[in-house]
């Protein structure tokens, strides 16, 4: 049965994030009243996710390397998007992530005050990825680079739970049709199954209708949405379970695809794609 491999230190899995860092990511999310740039929102979401993954892998004696993680940014440049001590690294074990944030910021969050209200609490917020927005949208090159990284990784980890690639973009490719490169990425595999590709499309139009985890292309508005739907993987049973818990309606044909997503939907998609299953 595919997608059932144990994830352990001896048999880690992999997450690879592909982030659109083109100039249009400087625009705010389409949601009304939101002034936060998409690039900033995505960087926050990725930093938060990395923090959560580190904490999930933390034990009292240290970090267990259940995951290897990479981040490729594409815009003015295409390449690893880590900043700080991890700059230039394509894929690193989660223990390196834990030890190597570029900086730790102090932020506030609202927490339950135990009396029906909320109070602001200072929290530490480690940063591994900065907000970047410049240049075009060289999606083909990004996909090809991801393919090269995962060809090597899957060869080195033939029994692993297959890598999950989460691609976050707000625009169309400016360096050609990325479909072949995306299909190639999905053809890569371990003995436990093919690489899983999520496409998360960001909205910049407050009137755009959002679409979450569709199972058919019937309602798609255009060819571009069709491309993202076609190249998105079908959710694994465990991912479907997580999506159902979050209130999404899913079937066994549901794809890892969201269209015109706001920031909360981005966070949910990241959670569905990266929730640990079968950790040992």
């Amino acid at each position: 049965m595919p997608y059932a491999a144990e994830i352990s230190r001896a048999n880690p899995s992999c997450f690879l994030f592909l982030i659109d860092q083109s100039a249009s990511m400087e625009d705010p999310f389409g949601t009304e009243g939101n002034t936060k740039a998409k690039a900033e929102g995505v960087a926050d979401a990725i930093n938060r996710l990395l923090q959560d993954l580190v904490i999930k892998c933390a034990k009292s004696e240290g970090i267990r390397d259940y995951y290897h993680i990479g981040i490729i940014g594409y815009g003015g440049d295409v390449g690893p998007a880590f900043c700080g001590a991890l700059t230039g690294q394509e894929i690193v074990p989660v223990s390196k992530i834990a030890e190597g944030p570029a900086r730790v910021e102090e932020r506030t969050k609202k927490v339950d005050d135990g009396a029906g209200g909320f109070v602001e609490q200072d929290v530490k917020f480690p940063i591994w990825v900065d907000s970047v927005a410049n240049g075009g949208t060289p999606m083909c090159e990004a996909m090809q680079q991801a393919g090269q990284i995962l060809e090597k990784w899957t060869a080195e980890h033939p029994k692993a739970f297959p890598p999950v690639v989460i691609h976050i973009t707000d625009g169309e490719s400016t360096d050609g049709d990325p479909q072949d490169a995306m299909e190639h990425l999905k053809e890569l595999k371990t003995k436990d199954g093919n690489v899983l590709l999520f496409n998360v499309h960001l909205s910049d139009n407050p009137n755009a209708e959002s679409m979450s985890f569709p199972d058919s292309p019937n309602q798609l508005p255009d060819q571009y949405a069709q491309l993202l739907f076609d190249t998105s993987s079908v959710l694994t049973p465990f991912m479907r379970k997580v999506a159902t818990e979050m209130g999404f309606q899913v079937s066994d044909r549901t794809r890892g695809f969201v269209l015109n997503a706001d920031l909360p939907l981005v966070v949910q998609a990241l959670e569905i794609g990266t929730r640990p299953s079968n950790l040992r």
Partner: protein
Amino acid sequence: MQVVAKAYWLPKKGHEEAEYEDAFAPGDTLLDGDLFRCAIADGATEASFSKQWARALVNAWQLGSLTKERFVTQICELQDNWRRGITEVRKHQKLSWYAQQKADLGAFAALVGFVLHHDPVPAAPPADAEQGDDWAEQGPPAAQTAADPEAADAAAGDQAPAEPAPDAQQLGVPWWEALAVGDCNLFQVRGGRLLTAFPLTASEQFHGGPFLVSTRGTAGADLSRHVRVVHGDWQPHDTFYLMTDALAAWFLRAFEAAEQPWDVVEQALGTEDPQESFAALVRGLREQKLLHNDDVTLLAIRVDLSLAAVATATPPLAWEEPAAEDAGDAAPAEHTDTQVGDQES
């Protein structure tokens, strides 16, 4: 009564012994007395400090500072102790940012606590029972459940403090009681038959996401909804097994396939080196994909009459199964058709 209890355990494949996160208490025991308390717990892999929390739970149960009657209240006390301990750790050790945040999320463990009583059930509930916590009282032993489904339904919905099983009270027989949260399981085997499976009664119920006892003190109401209790009678030569989830799931799957997994277990435990035989059994089951790769713990408990009674009335206490005619004599007729699956609350 005489109780012989032995613990067997193995960490996950690929893990060091120091990384084993289950717990059991006591260890190997030979006891001649009126009361025996024991427990096993399964610390959650995804939390940190789970091993320590699992140990705290089983030790408290064994010592009687964690009981069926005041479980939720006493867990709150253990949680207070836990918070003080973590505060001390932070004072004396420089924890990394992730270790601090992980510790804040709490530790979690599944638990099954078990008590053997030699004396017949007292006529009145224990003195502190009226102040006891609410929980879902599991039905009486499976034999009654199978014979009288309506009575079983009524018992399963009973929110009153625990009372002994009606049959035990009426007959004045030795009895046992157990409490569980999560997917550690208790099995009672008598005369080659599975008499009790608690709290889970079917292998499909082991889905990997049970409610667990947490170190975080805000979950008292949730906890009380997830506590399961049960009681029943015991007879000489009964065997009880406390198992963490991976082994318990295999045990029930084998039972559902009309096999007798207790024979497989006893065969391993009956060798000259039972720890190694048990480890070999677990490794073999893992190889055959019949057992999830998880920490495995088995606490095997054999109960018999006291030494004095044994000397005059029965053969000497031994780990071997009783002779066939003994088993037949020991098993009451009403247990013959027991359906373990009927016992779920």
